[in-house]
């Protein structure tokens, strides 16, 4: 299918629908959630019923409502962290590619140092030092992931800055901002957009992992990761409750990946086919 000259695939449609459902549910939670997410209204781990679509959690709160509200935190934190990572990563990445020399050297070596220690270790060190909270989680994940964004932005921009239309702009005497905003960024955008989607997925999983380890969002608030943790004890009892927030995590991750795949396939196709 083609809309306005752009090829739309089935994967892209399904992925977009999943993202819209998750994000929409999170944003509209106060209006669409059938129950108060923090109010116990029945027995521990009651099974799904027409009244409670996904049953109740370990202290009898409505699981579906909690997932809707939990999405606000999970998606919100991940989105903020990803945006932070991109602002820092793209600016440093472009600077490294354009100026080269010691700037590139400095940023790249800092990146190497950060990458030499696993992210979760960094996060544990930072969070145990500064305590936890929404702001510190966003700052931690954002700055750790800015390193990955830096690497992608740098390598993409490196391929563009050497092209002759960039040289032509420099020879014309264009300022740095023009060269970046008009000549380099538009041509680096598709891979960066794809990286944004992937990075969001990782940030989202990272938030969930921290919460699962008890370093993330603290009760009574809950994101999807902490909900899995809270009800994890139900698994040996053969109760499906923890699988619902886990499924929500998986679903959104798959949805974003589907859209990213589509974006990347557009980028790798020759110019003439998609523009």
């Amino acid at each position, binding site marked *: 299918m083609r809309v306005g000259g752009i*090829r739309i695939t089935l994967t892209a449609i399904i992925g977009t629908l999943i993202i819209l459902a998750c994000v929409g549910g999170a944003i509209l939670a106060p209006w669409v959630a059938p129950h108060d997410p923090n109010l116990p209204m029945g027995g521990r781990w009651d099974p799904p019923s027409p009244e409670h679509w996904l049953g109740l959690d370990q202290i009898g709160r409505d699981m579906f409502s909690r997932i809707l509200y939990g999405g606000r935190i999970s998606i919100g934190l991940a989105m903020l962290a990803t945006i932070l990572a991109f602002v820092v990563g793209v600016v440093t990445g472009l600077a490294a590619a354009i100026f080269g020399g010691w700037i590139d050297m400095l940023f790249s070596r800092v990146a190497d140092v950060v990458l030499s220690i696993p992210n979760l270790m960094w996060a544990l060190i930072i969070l145990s030092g500064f305590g936890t909270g929404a702001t510190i989680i966003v700052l931690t994940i954002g700055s750790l992931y800015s390193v990955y964004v830096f690497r992608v932005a740098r390598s993409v921009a490196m391929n563009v800055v050497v092209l002759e239309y960039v040289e*032509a702009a420099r020879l014309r005497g264009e300022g740095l901002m023009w060269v970046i905003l008009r000549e380099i960024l538009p*041509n680096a955008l598709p891979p960066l957009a794809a990286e944004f989607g992937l990075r969001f997925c990782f940030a989202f999983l990272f938030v969930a992992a921290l919460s699962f380890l008890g370093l993330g969002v603290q009760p009574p608030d809950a994101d999807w990761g902490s909900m899995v943790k809270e009800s994890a004890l139900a698994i040996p009892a053969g109760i499906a409750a923890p699988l619902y927030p886990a499924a929500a995590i998986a679903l959104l991750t798959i949805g974003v990946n589907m859209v990213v795949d589509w974006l990347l396939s557009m980028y790798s196709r020759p110019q003439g086919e998609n523009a």
Partner: protein
Amino acid sequence: MAQVRPKAEGQILDVRNLRIEAVTETGQRVTLIDDISFTLNAGEVLGLIGESGAGKSTIGLSTLAYARTGCQITGGQIMLHGSDLRGLSVRGRQSLRGVKVAYIAQSAAAAFNPAHTIFDQVAEVALKHGLMNRAQVRMDAIRLFRELDLPNPDVFGKRYPHQVSGGQLQRAMAAMAMIAKPDLLVFDEPTTALDVTTQVEVLASFKKLIREHRTAALYITHDLAVVAQIADRIMVLRGGKMVEQGTATQILQQPGMDYTRMLVAERVAAEQSRFVEDHAAGDRPVLEVKNVVAAYRGTVNVIDDVSIDVRRGDTLAIVGESGSGKSTLARVIVGLLPRRQGDVLFDAASLKPRLQDRSKEQLRRIQMIYQMPDVALNPRQTLLDIIGRPVQFYFGKRRAEVRVRVEELLQQIDLPPDYIKRRPHELSGGQKQRVCIARALAAEPDIIICDEITSALDPLVADEILRLLRRIQDDTGVAFLFITHDLGTVRRIANKVAVMLKGKMVANGPTEQVFSPPFHPYTELLLSSVPEMRPDWLDEVLSRRRKAG
């Protein structure tokens, strides 16, 4: 001695009504090759001539029972020794390629694996297919190296690809192709990437090889003069269809079709057009380069003590082979590479070495056009953005005025006004180069530096670009600094020429004077290396050089 398969005689290849189609992204079928038929006998060379997109390589590859990804041989027969290649199994194709039919590509550097010695790669086919043992292959390879005039044939194979020159590697690829004694060789533009002086030697080696082994060969090229030296018969192709076929002399001397006549006429013009008169239009030089020395890193000077001057209305050609420092000189003039010594004067005022230190007005008056229009235009911008930006940037015009000016410029480069909304990928290669010219003109410069701007274009398209440049020069009096390795281009457009060799200037002056005796020895070597369309040109050059020692 190696077991030599009996050399086939008579008809080797018989291609009948060949049809190759491609399926595009949108599912449309495009015919690449339409109803092509030809035969090839042992020891015979058929030249395939045409512009890019004519289907030359596609035909060449089909004789290896190969079609590029997305392409399919959908009709006709490719009979090698009477059996159709289209019916071959995967295994059959494997035992065909490299053994019965071998391919010699344009870029030997890309065809060789840098991690293995040349001998290992030359021997691979013969060893893999169990045609000979290692000792036999060694002897054969050395014999081939000797036949191909490679230096120290006994030990040449022990070197790695990066240790030999481009021309030697190209000949090593011919040895690789010949090792299994194929019945058919496919040469796909094998000398196009080489410098002219190297091309002569490589062509001579190929010719000797084909003659001595009586191998049938397909020789694909866009250069009529090259094919004239080597082919017995020529087939002219255009857009996947045959234009005409005949003996080499017939096609080159009495072409039957208009299209062939145009190709031949273009080539004749390159060979025989009168020199451009040295019309000294301006009295004061616009651009003067004085004893400039420049280097990238380290101590080796890439250009060393180079001086030129360009007057208004001049076209100064800088010629030389790859690595001679032509493009570096351009980079020094525009300030991308700061000079180490010497001076660059523009309108009698010294230009700062670095681009960043020059005034906007100085930048405006020197413009540049590049070799590859594909990467010189931002794919995300429309022609309005691309051509309009210099107008807006240098002259501060408002939107409506910019648009009017861009339409004027489009007219000047013979593109329709509604192209203003198009993006580069909607244009052909020649049109893109016109847009680059328009972008340069938009700045209303005094001098335009043209860096190999016609070398990526087909001859007929390149010819139109040269005409356009001449017309623009007559209209505006702009001066051109024309960097090229193609002496035919120089003859047609430049009134002055500077010859560079290894970063030094060896000759400089009006074209007629530099290109007439008494020559500088290097200028003479360059001039005598440019292939001419007479079929006996190659033999003459070789015998002349042999006499001269």
